[in-house]
């Protein structure tokens, strides 16, 4: 029985199709643009094709992420907090704290003994502590975003970046460069700053083992190391951190289905653009 989860994040749309054994049958990642509905359908079609299924064979479709409202063919819309929790619970049953670092926000989630969301915190309307923060600074430094983590790992120590406002931090980075600080050390300082902010936020929940870092930020090993350093013990990361939300969405759909919930309406496999 295939269940699909779609996570429309600020920069990427992720789809996972999983079965009732919680095994991933297929996944696909595409860009998120202004035309959510149009792109959501494209990414879904790709994933269905990869799983060698037809769209109608999907028993339940759950959409999550900030663009979840714009998925006309979803049977339910569920927040990413719940979906990340469900996805991580499947991958790491021992997880009690999840740190999700996305493109435009970051979250801390506490799970209870049964794996349900017990509490959560989110960063407020600010890019600090998010992927966007690193993205802006990487542009300033002229470095590929994907190279930032390795660069941080190669640094001898780090330069203190005190300002977490993205705009002011950009100024601070420029000043540090002018003072002759090394790029790797500056980048390591940026990772330290993000880790500080995210870990402090998560401390409100009470940090306990195991801690899983997920979202795009978990692809950045420099950031993962900085977070572990702040927490004081090693953290876990999923094999494919981008898709844990989508995996969770698929599994939330499976949970609905197993409780006897069925899609209420015929799915509108609608391809709508905002400009049509």
């Amino acid at each position, binding site marked *: 029985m295939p269940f699909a989860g779609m996570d429309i994040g600020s920069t990427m749309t992720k789809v996972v199709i999983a079965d009732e054994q919680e095994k991933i049958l297929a996944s696909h990642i595409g860009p998120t643009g202004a035309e959510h509905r149009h792109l959501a359908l494209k990414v879904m079609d790709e994933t269905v094709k990869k799983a060698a299924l037809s769209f109608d064979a999907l028993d339940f479709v759950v959409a999550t992420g*900030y663009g*979840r*409202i714009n998925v006309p063919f979803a049977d339910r*819309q*569920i*927040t*990413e*907090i*719940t979906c990340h929790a469900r996805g991580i619970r499947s991958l790491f049953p021992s997880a009690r704290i999840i740190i999700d670092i996305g493109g435009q*926000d970051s979250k801390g989630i506490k799970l*209870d003994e049964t794996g*349900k*969301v*017990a*509490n*959560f*915190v*989110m960063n*407020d*309307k600010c890019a600090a502590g998010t992927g966007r923060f690193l993205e802006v600074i990487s542009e300033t430094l002229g470095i590929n975003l994907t190279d930032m983590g390795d660069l941080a790992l190669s640094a001898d120590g780090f330069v203190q970046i005190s300002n977490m406002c993205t705009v002011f931090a950009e100024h601070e980075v420029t000043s540090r460069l002018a003072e002759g600080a090394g790029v790797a050390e500056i980048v390591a300082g940026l990772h330290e700053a993000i880790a500080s902010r995210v870990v402090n936020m998560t401390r*409100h929940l*009470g940090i306990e083992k195991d801690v899983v870092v997920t979202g795009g930020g978990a692809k950045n090993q420099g950031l993962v190391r900085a977070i572990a350093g702040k927490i004081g013990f090693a953290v876990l990361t999923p094999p494919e951190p981008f898709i844990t939300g989508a995996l969770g969405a698929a599994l939330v759909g499976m949970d609905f289905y197993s409780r006897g919930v069925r899609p209420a309406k015929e799915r509108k496999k609608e391809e709508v653009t905002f400009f049509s």
Partner: protein
Amino acid sequence: MEQAQQAKTTAVKGTDTAREVRALVKNIYRSAHEAKAEGKKVAYMMVASQYDEILRAMDIVPLPTENYAGLCAAKRDMDRFLLKAEADGYSQVLCSYARIGLGFDSLRKELGHIPEGSPDGGMPVPDMMLGSSAVCDPRFKWYQATSRYLEVPTYGIDVVAPPPQDDLNAVRDYYIQYQRDQLKGLIGFLEAQTGRKMDPDRLWECIRLGDKAWQLWYDIDRLRVAIPCPMPSQDHFSIMVAGHYYTGTQIAVDFYQKLYDEVKYKVDHKIGVIPDEKYRILYGGGLPPWHTLWIFNYFESFGAVFVIENVYRGYDPVEVPSFVKDPVDFLAWRAFLRFTRYHEKARSRSGNPIVEKLLDMIADYRIDGVVFHACRSCRATTIGQTHIKSELGKYSDLPMMQLVSDMVDLRDYSEAQWKAQIGAFMEALEGRSRG
């Protein structure tokens, strides 16, 4: 579970009586203008300052500047006042109530008249300003700063409470004596401003009316333990007007009697705020988001009702000893007893009176989740909120959420972020209720 956005800023009320509050609010400002025209004394004042009955006893018309800030926010007419205060050099992290007040007074001085289209006709120039240290420091300094714009006398009263770890028996006399001296100092100032002595019998009468109204308010809140909840928090944030701005008047007593009768009827007939009450929420603290009170209705669209709140509440009734025969002594005693209501309980458990109060509410009102509102410019209710939340978590495993914005300043609010958080919070409640 996603719900459509509401267009309006105010909340749909749960009771008919709460809908009558708008007229009470309009009357505050109309009365102040009329009083000025008649040559009566008008005073800028602040809630919880323990001097309300004294003002009424001396026929001084109260003009609550904090309420005016909330009114401007509810009308979404706050930016011109905030920006004016900021242009005058006041920081964006200063209390936004104070910034609106300062901005309004600055604009009025600059224009030579009340700014065009000010909500409810604006505030007239007062005859005096009565600051207070109760709750926070800006309330003590605000009116001193307003002296830049108004040439009227200012008086600041110190309102004190001992820390929870103090032995109340050891400090009681000292605190009460100090509070009495503060109140007497204020009375001396008011007598000088009005040119007449305060009548103790009249003060006793106002105290009697004040206590009667607050007893009724307390009784109403106790009725709210009923399931389904008969009156939600958005009503509280309206009906508090009678208790805080009409203290010591028959108007407040009559209003709360009417509200009591309505709420009692709803309880007796099991009439809830919404037809299907799934979750009972405690508003754990922080000033309300006056700019977006419809958010309470947004929660209701998920079946969640705010059944009780820990801000702008009437004090629990206290029993002042019968040997207290002087009305000013009575006010000093009453203030002490009000402020130390949860001290002994705190000493025996968490050490924090607010945590104890919240735990009582969680038990009495059968709460399913707690929501706090962190206001960026309100240090008094926001600093320590995370600590309270975390302390509360030691004694309760309920889902809790902290929304962040400001009580007035819309620039600190993000609707998308709030909706994302609320959605996740509702899912946590749902998951918990499913077991």
